[in-house]
């Protein structure tokens, strides 16, 4: 194929650049949130859900289906025109393109008798919603799945993050890779001000972020180049793991030293009964029946205190 491929990269970028205006306009939950941006307590929501790149892709695919506008309850979802076309395109090899006419045989086999849209129209709708790439040669159109949906995927952090403000970072939405935007949403509190989107470091969000988020190149770059992010992450590093709250375990106070030693000998082991300070022991809940049975056999009794009885 000699013709240059065409792809509507601007569609996603336009959608992303709507964030500051749309989010500023609707901070409250609206009736229908499909395809809408919203900032709720510093969290970027898309369609009412925390923003992820996959959600944007899903929205694009949904718009594609709506644009085709074909429904048939008698057919399984996988056999509707859009999934059918995407399946056919997924079978193409590298550098292969598909002419709409080539799927006619498939069309006739699955959608026989139904007033299905023409393959050409479906392909064109896919192109319009940035779900397909198009190439034109000698007056004919050819399509394939997009090779790279995000044009800014390779942008370095310095190209889209403005760190001149010591307290927050300005996000240049025209050049921010979608994955980086999602990552920034995970670790910071976002705010829309002056038609721009800003990220402010948030200890809670960073602490909740998955481990791989903290080694993400964008996050690493921020730690290196922005004082507020750096200090927040250092605080996190300093505090993380210092306070632990253990749940779904049993604890007991054993006031008889001999009994405690016997229990440790009988039930001690990695992940089993463990001695704490001041005569206390902790053990997994599943160990209780065995422990209770042993206690009964050895002539001891268990006095229980339940959490719902405590003040």
């Amino acid at each position: 194929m000699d013709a240059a491929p065409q792809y509507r990269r601007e569609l996603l970028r336009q959608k992303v650049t709507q964030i500051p205006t749309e989010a500023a306009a609707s901070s409250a939950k609206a009736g229908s949130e499909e395809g809408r941006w919203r900032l709720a307590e510093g969290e970027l929501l898309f369609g009412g859900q925390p923003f992820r790149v996959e959600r944007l892709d899903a929205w694009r695919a949904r718009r594609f289906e709506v644009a085709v506008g074909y429904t048939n309850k008698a057919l399984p979802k996988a056999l509707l025109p859009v999934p059918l076309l995407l399946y056919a395109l997924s079978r193409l090899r590298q550098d292969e393109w598909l002419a709409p006419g080539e799927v006619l045989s498939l069309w006739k086999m699955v959608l026989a008798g139904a007033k299905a849209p023409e393959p050409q129209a479906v392909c064109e709708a896919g192109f319009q919603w940035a779900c397909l790439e198009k190439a034109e040669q000698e007056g004919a159109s050819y399509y394939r799945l997009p090779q790279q949906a995000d044009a800014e995927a390779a942008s370095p952090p310095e190209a889209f993050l403005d760190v001149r403000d010591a307290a927050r970072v300005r996000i240049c939405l025209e050049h921010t890779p979608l994955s980086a935007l999602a990552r920034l949403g995970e670790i910071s509190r976002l705010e829309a001000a002056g038609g721009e989107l800003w990220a402010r470091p948030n200890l809670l969000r960073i602490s909740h972020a998955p481990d791989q988020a903290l080694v993400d190149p964008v996050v690493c770059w921020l730690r290196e180049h922005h004082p507020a992010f750096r200090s927040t992450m250092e605080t996190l590093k300093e505090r993380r793991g210092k306070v632990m709250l253990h749940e779904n375990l049993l604890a007991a106070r054993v006031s008889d030293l001999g009994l405690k030693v016997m229990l440790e000998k009988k039930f001690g082991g990695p992940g089993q009964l463990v001695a704490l300070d001041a005569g206390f022991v902790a053990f997994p809940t599943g160990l209780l029946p065995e422990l209770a049975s042993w206690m009964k056999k050895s002539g001891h009794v268990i006095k229980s205190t339940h959490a719902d009885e405590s003040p």
Partner: protein
Amino acid sequence: MPMNPLNLQEVKATDLDVFVNPADLRQDLQALADYVRIHEIKRGYRDNRIPQAHQQRLLKLMSDPASAAKKDQFGDAKWIEHLDAVCLALKWVGYDTEGKYMGYSSSEPSFPDNFMEFDEGQHRNFLQLPLQAQEERILEIHLKAGEVGASEFFSRSTLGRLDSFPSFGCATGVVPTIAFWKVRRHLLELLAQCPVGVWFSTASLLDHLRLHDPWFVIPKVVPDAVRKDSLRQGRYANFVERKPGDWNHDKPISERDPEGFAKVEGRFIERFLEGVPLVLGYTEVAYTRSKTESPIEPSRGLLPAFRITERLRRAVRQEVAEPKVTVLPNFEVHVESLFFPARTEAQLRPLGELVQRGIVTVFKLTKSKVAAAQAAQADENAIQTLKALSGRELPQNVEHELRDWAGHSEKFILYEGFGVLEGRREATGVGRFVVETISPSFALVHSAEALYRHLEAAEQVPLRIRHADNALAAPAHVRSRIAPTAVPPSAPVKRPVKVKRSLRTTLWFADGEAHAAFCQLLLDAKCVLAADRRALTVSYPPQAEPQVKECLRKLKENYTLAVEDIES
């Protein structure tokens, strides 16, 4: 009304078949209550009875399992059914007794999902009653059960052997006007005058009643309403005698029959004696040993003797004494009571093992039970309980040991449903969640969810570790004293694959004749190698290299040979 002195004829029961109720109804009622309390019992869909599986288990808990297991001609365990009915009347248990008709064609109700519910409050209230009041309640329920068709005239008693009058038409006539419960109470009061343990003739009792109290069942004057409206007019119009199998005969006993009293009231007395008083252990009865079939139904004169027990005398005279409890230095607790001491037993059972049951019931206090009781209920105090029951100080050694045993319950205190906070408690407001401070680094906390939110709000970056049921484990890279760090999954072990290698050299000939000549030379040299006549090749392993070289040298004698390596 003053009663005439009872002067009954004493008899010997040596030639008779004596029957004594071996079971203690009061004890069995408690056993059933305890069973229902801990079991979920779904009653029969059709018959609304306790299912067989539960009945079998219940039988083992009865005071006399063998007699309780006896079934009537319909295969029903009547003792269990009787206990069930009494428990329901006492309101200890509740279940649907009405049922519902499942369709137009249903001839009787069904009982879907009819679960027995135990009323702890009603049972506790009963136990709180003095023994006399408990006995009165049980007696009252028995006296008031069985009116009209379920009365002694028309229904077999739980333990009785005697047959009954046919009940057809008993809803009209004189029977519905009889207050049977009053009749029964009256007879019990009469019987209570008899000396205890002496066999008396039933006939003499009947004579006494005929002479002194002939209207004890059926009133002297039958109400006018019965005379006018009922089809069954007359004093004995409800009672039909017939020969066995003579179903066509339905002529009632005549009012003018000189033996009418013996035939009707006499039969009632016999059946009464093997009814309520026998079930409650108030009477013991003696049957004739004759196996021959009675010429007239219902039978008459098959229960010629009876005697009363001390229980009847005390119950009627309201002399039921509270149990006498004595704690002995050997840790035995003796409970002396003619009637089953339900409340005392309920208090003593958690503290010791039952050693002997009877008029004197013996419990042996045990360390494990006392400690377990103390552990289960913090406000339980064995010493106070025993002092209150016996009404005196305990033997010193017993009191000393009980105090020691009570302390035994504090040796292992289990905290269920709490969380453990590990690390320095620097954030303010954490203290209100702490239940027990274990050390500066550990604390038992309640409301773990709320505490976690509190620590997050305080920017303490808390780590929440929810352990698995079977092992304590912290996530990778987390150092905890409670749980070992989970070992990160190691890289998958590479499966060893052994590959053998061999090197072969192939000579490619361009000329078929030369190839054939070379093959011939090889054969002459007795060197067998892989030769391909089509491809004109000869392949050989390194070991055959000297022989191949020798053959090539011989080939040079006839051909101009040049060997060229293809790879190079």
